[in-house]
């Protein structure tokens, strides 16, 4: 059970050591910076220190209660993240697969639209642009009816 916000790179595999002991099912999601057809150099992620950490922990607990997770882990980076590097990961552990899948899916939908992070693209041509929120992300979140 843990939530972390950090600027340092991380190895998703190393995060899972000792995760979910005794569970029958573990689901992980890892988000990685795509190169967008070679146009992107890096992402820069800003967040709301204090609020972010509290909300990640709060939603982890909420997912644990709602889906009966035996363990959960959320890690999200901020700062500059190079193409090909992991941005964030979510892991869920449960007795059966459906709970682990739904817990991870729920946490991701929530993170996309409610966790106070903002992404900016640093492009190879030197331009910089904030990433716009996708309408589809709000639709995804609405599936859980507790936004």
């Amino acid at each position, binding site marked *: 059970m843990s939530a972390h916000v950090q600027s340092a790179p991380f190895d998703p595999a190393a995060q899972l050591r000792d995760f979910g002991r005794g569970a029958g099912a573990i689901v992980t999601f890892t*988000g990685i910076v795509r190169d967008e057809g070679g146009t992107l150099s890096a992402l820069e992620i*800003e*967040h*709301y220190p*204090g*609020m972010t950490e*509290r909300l990640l922990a709060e939603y982890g607990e909420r997912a644990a209660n709602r889906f009966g997770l035996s363990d959960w882990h959320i890690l*999200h980076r901020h700062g500059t993240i190079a193409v090909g590097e992991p*941005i*964030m990961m979510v892991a869920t552990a449960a007795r059966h697969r459906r709970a682990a899948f739904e817990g991870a899916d729920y946490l*991701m939908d929530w*993170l*996309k*639209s*409610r*966790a*106070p*992070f*903002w*992404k*900016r693209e640093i492009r190879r041509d030197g331009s910089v642009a*904030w*990433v*716009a*929120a996708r309408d589809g992300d709000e639709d995804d979140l609405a599936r859980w009816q507790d936004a």
Partner: protein
Amino acid sequence: MTLEVLYFASLRERVGTPRETVETQAATVRALMAELSARSAGHAAAFADPASLRCAVDQQLANLDAPLDGVRELAFFPPMTGG
């Protein structure tokens, strides 16, 4: 009352500062936005489209009609893009 007002992402860029201390009698977030809009062209631009703006009151997501009574920290930002 005295409030810490925080700005993030494109809102921070428009206003030109990540935070400022504000003295106000505004009753709601929306009323404060009207006052802040008078401060500079950057503030006016930041608050020009309330529908594209999110806020947090003492680090809890809130809507623009939330009351400010007793609030110490108010944050404005665009829709979040985590994950």
